[in-house]
């Protein structure tokens, strides 16, 4: 019997850990992603002959808390019907007790994967779509709490999907549809998981707002996500990812954008933009070469900005004036 190499041992152990989907309508295909809590597999829905993404708890994280959290994530996603949020198809429990849910299979790249050579305006337009998606969730009473480039997927046509709502905070909002009466278990879990205990720290360092990092759960609101959006904006503008030790910015941020990032990431929530939409409006102003609220520009900067904004018109006027001058000079001669 030949000694199995370490790599094979690890692979076989992993294969053994993979969920056994017998008894479900799904067939496992391959592992396509993993996080702290769960794995995401490409799977086939045999009933409908279509590919889906199947998220299941890692075996090491299959305690009651994690199971309730995954169920809750599926319900949060089911509530949020938006093009920027992946739609959930099904939720269930495997024979070994692990919870899973299936969702639309998204093909694309994560924002933290090697960046392409897209221009700053393109990256900013992408950021606007992230903000719009997050603002939609906020309007439905959901705070994501773990926004970071690794949780943003960009599709082949530039579509943006905000992923991993596993630690989202849900507050009741008038827009939320009423919970069906026939879901007592769900209700029980919601009340359990919806109330994250004060002092509990969930999120990603570098993208977490100070109040979140301190476990001040009661202070967490839309502005907590605004802080993370500020960190994402900084990443998109400068290339700086605070989760990668030793990696500094690779591009310099234009001063108005640097000020927008600074305001979004203010330590005091009251000093930040009050909503994701407000932050998006600021970035849209920059894109339109309008002045941003967070930055007071000097006369020279203003002239330069206006010059850039009205470049075509200024050139036309200058060309017209040059023509007039030429005509006058010709007449004089």
């Amino acid at each position, binding site marked *: 019997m030949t*000694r*199995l190499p370490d790599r*094979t041992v690890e*692979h*076989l*152990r992993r294969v*053994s850990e993979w969920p056994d989907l017998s008894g479900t309508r799904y067939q496992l295909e391959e592992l396509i992603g993993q996080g702290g809590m769960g794995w995401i597999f490409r799977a086939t829905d045999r009933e409908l002959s279509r590919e889906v993404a199947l998220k299941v708890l890692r075996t*090491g994280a299959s305690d009651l808390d994690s199971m309730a959290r995954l169920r809750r994530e599926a319900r949060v996603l089911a509530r949020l019907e938006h093009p920027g949020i992946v739609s959930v198809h099904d939720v269930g429990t495997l*024979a070994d*007790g692990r919870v899973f849910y299936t969702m639309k299979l998204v093909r694309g790249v994560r924002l933290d994967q090697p960046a392409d050579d897209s221009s700053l305006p393109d990256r900013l337009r992408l950021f606007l779509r992230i903000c719009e998606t997050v603002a939609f969730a906020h309007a439905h009473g959901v705070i994501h709490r773990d926004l970071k480039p690794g949780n943003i997927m960009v599709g082949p046509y530039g579509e943006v999907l905000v992923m991993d709502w596993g630690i989202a905070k849900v507050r009741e909002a008038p827009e939320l549809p009423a919970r069906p009466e026939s879901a007592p278990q769900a209700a029980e879990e919601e009340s359990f998981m919806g109330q994250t205990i004060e002092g509990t720290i969930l999120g990603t360092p570098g993208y977490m707002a100070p109040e979140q990092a301190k476990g001040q759960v009661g202070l967490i609101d839309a502005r907590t996500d605004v802080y993370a959006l500020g960190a994402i904006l900084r990443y998109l503008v400068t290339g700086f990812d605070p989760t990668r030790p030793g990696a500094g910015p690779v591009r310099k941020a234009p001063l108005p954008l640097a000020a927008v990032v600074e305001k979004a990431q203010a330590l005091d929530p009251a000093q930040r933009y009050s909503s994701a939409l407000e932050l998006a409006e600021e970035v849209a102003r920059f894109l339109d070469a309008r002045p941003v609220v967070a930055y007071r520009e000097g006369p020279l900067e203003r002239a330069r900005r206006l010059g850039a904004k009205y470049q075509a018109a200024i050139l036309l006027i200058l060309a017209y004036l040059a023509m007039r001058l030429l005509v006058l000079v010709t007449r004089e001669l």
Partner: protein
Amino acid sequence: MAAFPQTRTSVVRELRSRDPEVYRRAFDGLVAAYWKPVYFHLRLRWEILDAEAQDLTQEFFLRLLEKRYLDRYDSARSRFRTFLRLCLDRFITNQKKASTRLKRGGETVPLSLDFAGAEQEVREVASEYADPETRFHREWVRSLLALALEDLRRRCEETGKTTHLALFQRYDLETPDSGPASYQHLAEAFDLPVTQVTNHLAWARREFRRLLLERLRHLCGSEREFRAEAKALLGVEVA
């Protein structure tokens, strides 16, 4: 070596059986899973030279068989593999105290173990893990997986699922550094539709997992230990 047990009875219970057939089968299963961890433990933890370590490995298992030491195992007190390692350490300590080892007579049939192959692996094992406990544990897991693979091979041959096995071999066992072959590539190589490739692979993985858990269950002292081992070693929750 070690026909796969037909039932899910624990090896410990089978080793207490008075039926020589059951006892022998359980013993073979035990040796198959543990002889390499035992041999590496003697070579590396006790720094015993290869020829002597080979003799001692044989003698250790034969002594277990002869003296029925495993009858003393109490699943409430420790894990079976921990008990076995402690038995081994005590056995070696006693051997050292006696300073001369009992030389066995010609009537004893030695176990058929591939020591030459194991000896080639000793240096590799020594460089991988410094801690004897971790080493024993890792080598035990490795043996367990290898036995489950043998079981899978046997099962595939018995049921005529050789293509399933060949696909499993290519995709899950012979993964090059660049990653596994794509399903499409395998489909072309085996002249099958991609859906059939994934179906066959799904079956082989499911069967491998089942056989692995069967092996593990057999080698544990109790159902409780089995559940704990399944979760700790393989990460799986068993129903």
